[in-house]
């Protein structure tokens, strides 16, 4: 298997192709009506006709063309098609959980990058979204972050951009601490024009920091979607034996008896989740949660069809 196609397997690509949804629906379908783009208007410039795809609004049909050709076409305007999307992927140490070398085995080189890790899942998710949107001639950018934004690929359209995105993903490895809030602010500094920000992270960070970042995005009038990627172990905490938990982001190791601390962990986890969702809602952002056990294509499909796990 080609290293280049690790995050876009042929089977996944084929499934994505069959989805036949427009990138716009990614935005429009996932953004509530109150947040529909205000950019459509008289001042936008006609760009091209495009064959009607399911999900397009019927009011955008060019009836004259339909009358002539008996085929549905919609009109695309520059402003509508020039959607800028910034995909932000967390590459902190905690995103490496679930990959080779984690989950109880001694840590080794390349830990967290292997299949099964949250980073792997997140990267595939980012790649899938980038593929979809770039295929719809949208502009897609990528930011990899830890405590701050480490890698920044400005949003651009075109198939070459997909290669650049994939390349960046391939060279990334989860490490270090995480501060999505700070990273969001860094991205907001660079985004400029109004854009869609999709943050893919586990959000293992104090919610106030995230809230600050979301507030900045909202202030800059960006649309924000939070895609939370978790491992089932982090949701259920199934451990039984005495375990020494070594922080993937450099935290102090702790020798604990899971049976004793399990309830406290789950309470903390649930509280944090609720807090995060409240913060997202307050900031006008949507928040979806995926676990790595769910097949990626199912997660993408569900998300695109507005049945995403929240």
């Amino acid at each position, binding site marked *: 298997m080609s290293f280049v196609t690790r995050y876009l397997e042929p089977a996944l690509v084929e499934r994505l192709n069959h989805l036949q949804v427009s990138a716009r629906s990614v935005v429009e379908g996932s953004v509530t009506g109150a947040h529909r783009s205000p950019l459509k208007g008289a001042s936008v410039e006609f760009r091209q006709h495009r064959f009607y795809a399911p999900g397009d609004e019927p009011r955008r049909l060019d009836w004259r063309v339909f009358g002539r050709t008996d085929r549905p076409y919609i009109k695309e305007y520059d402003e509508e098609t020039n959607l800028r999307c910034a995909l932000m992927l967390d590459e902190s140490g905690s995103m490496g959980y679930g990959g080779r070398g984690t989950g109880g085995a001694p840590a080794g080189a390349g830990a967290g990058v292997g299949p099964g890790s949250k980073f792997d899942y997140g990267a595939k998710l980012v790649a899938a979204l980038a593929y979809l949107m770039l295929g719809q001639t949208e502009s897609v950018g990528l930011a990899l972050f830890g405590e701050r934004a480490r890698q920044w690929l400005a949003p651009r359209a075109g198939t070459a951009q997909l290669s650049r995105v994939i390349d960046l993903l391939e060279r990334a490895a989860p490490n270090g601490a995480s501060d999505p809030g700070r990273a969001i602010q860094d991205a907001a500094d660079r985004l400029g024009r109004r854009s869609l920000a999709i943050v893919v992270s586990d959000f293992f960070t104090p919610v106030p920091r995230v809230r600050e970042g979301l507030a900045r995005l909202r202030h800059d009038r960006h649309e924000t979607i939070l895609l939370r990627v978790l491992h089932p172990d982090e949701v259920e905490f199934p451990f039984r034996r005495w375990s020494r938990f*070594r922080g993937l982001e450099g935290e102090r190791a702790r*020798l604990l008896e899971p049976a004793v*601390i399990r309830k*406290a962990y789950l309470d903390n986890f649930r509280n944090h989740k609720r807090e995060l969702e409240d913060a997202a809602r307050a900031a006008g952002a949507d928040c979806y949660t995926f676990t790595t056990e769910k097949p990626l294509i199912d997660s993408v499909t569900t998300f695109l069809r507005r049945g995403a796990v929240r």
Partner: protein
Amino acid sequence: MFQNPLLLIGVGAAVVPLVLHLLSRARYRDVDWGAMMFLQGADSRQRQSSRISQFLLLLVRGLTVALLAVALARPILSDEWAGGAARGPVAAVIVLDCSASMGFDEAGNTRFTTAKAEARKVLEKLEPGDVASLVLVGAGAPEGAAAAAAAGGVGLTTDLRGVADRIAAATLGYGRANMAAALREAADRLRGHAGARDVYVITDRQASNWNEVNEAFVGAWHRREARTASAAGRGAGAVPRPVRLFALPVGGGDAQNVSVESIDVLTPPAIRGQPAEVEVTLRNRGPVRWAALPVALRAGEKRLPDAQINLAPDSVASFRFNVNFDAAGSQVLSAEVKTPGLTFDDRLEAAVEVVDPLRVLVISGDERAIGYRSESHFLRVALAPFKTTGRPGSDPFEVRVVPAEQWPQVQLRDFQVVVLANVERLTAAQAQEVEQFVYDGGGLLVAPGNLSRYEEYNAALYRGGAGILPGALYPPTAADGSQATALLGIDLDHAIFRFARGRPDPLPPATIARYFPTTRRPDAKRLAEYGSGDAFLISGESGRGRVLLVTVPLDADWSTLPLSNFYLPFVQSAVRYAASGAIPDRNLKAGAPLVAEIDGPLEGRTVTVLTPDGAKLELPLLVFGGRGEVRYADTSTPGRYSLVVRGGGRPEQTLTYVVATPRAESDLTPITEARWNELEHGLGIRRLDIRERSVAEILAGRRGARELWALGVGGVFLLSVVELFIARAVARGSA
């Protein structure tokens, strides 16, 4: 105190939960974890939880293991520890049934073997300081005293090893188990013991063992206990605890048993050269039907043809056979069957004294007539048929007929039986001579006839009942035959009439035209009677001899008896019977003294007795009125006892006596539940099945102690539930 102290080692396993906890803590796994932020606070909870819930869990788990080990060790809490008074050592009397029924074989093991094993178990559960005693019951001798002596003296002993040795040395006896006597003996031994007092009766399930434990015995037992308690209460010592009785029945309830009950010479004595008819009786106790059961017969060392007998369930059956003895002297007949189960009674021996043809003197009142009309004709023919008729063969009797007037020419002591056949009268001297003859062991047959003066017989021989005649004579019945009668009743069980047993018509078809009515002497026996109710035959004993009074002459003058087929066997039987008085019965019951007369000159004679167990003892020869006599008292062991008489210029003579094994133990009828209940309620006997409750448990309770294992197990269960709750609470974080 613990029943299984070795299991206390398991208490050490209480540290296992701690070790496991430490091991599991030491053998932790490493987890590279991303959600460390959610472990905040759980850490402190862990630390807090470690101090409390972990400690609690470990404590409960350790306690559970330790308590389980203690429970398995079966702790016993004595009253002493519980604040009660100390109970002192246990006194245990073991009553071991050694009677013959304990020899019943069950799958290769006798009940006696099993009983001895149980007795040893009782001893093994006693502790140093306890005392024990052994009573052997049914051994056929006053064994209790011997056992007490062997166990270390009269009464209880701390020498438990000695008691165990005595148990091992105990052998089966031939006597009956009398549990009443055994319990009395046991109670006597326990008298005065201050501590716990137990009696263990180890026996089979034979009902007859407990025959003497009746209402009277139970009442006496309780009175004795009450007296013991009140006597102790008045004294300075503590009131002894009541005696506790335990019955440990061994073996099953199988009562099937075939025994050889008796061997009898039907018409004693046995006469040399004459076929002696012998009857063997067998008894079948139980439901098994035996068809053609072979019976091995022996006459001395000579094996006779086997007989076969059919035995219905719970029945008695007999068969007869003839045996010829070629020589006079002591002989032994034996009969043996082979059946499973109890074997001591499968064989029986009987001593038979074989005599030379009996010498009979017939003193005839009228020998003037010729042929059958003489007084003695029919007698002679009956007693010596071969000689009388001139045919080849041996007669059982040597008969000499003497007219009454020639009586002084004969010596009565040269004969064994004298028949007074229609003798008119006896002089005083003759009466005295006849009396002395009878007292010396001779047999007398008196058959008065038409010549006999009944009043002189009464005066000379009856003498108001003091004489030898067993009945007083009255004037004969009418001569015209108007009072003619016939024989109506005869005692078929008597030796004289055994010949008639089995006959379809035992009574002779004979007419008795006249006879002498009689009144019987109080100690005499009427053996046969007429239809008129008067006696035909009366038997009496005087001194060592026997006298038979026939109330009709033995010729054909007054009856047609001599013409019947009854006459010959009757006369022969009567004469044999009369002669038997002087012939010793060499069959003895166990324990009966052996008394033997030694004939002939006594100077230089020695007598030695050989016992069944091989002992050889010389016996002193006692002289009584010119006769020699030896006595031997210890005949408790069944078997043959041989007296060997030597010296005095006489050939060596061996007299064989047989002590038969008592058949009292042959009845294995098991004790019923109702009877057990009677014993349990009346006497307080507790029947124990060793398989259900060990002697150790009984003794534990006896010491005033309580077993606590049940409490321990309950505690383990409770702790397990508590552990479950704590573990769940810890898991939920509520510990």
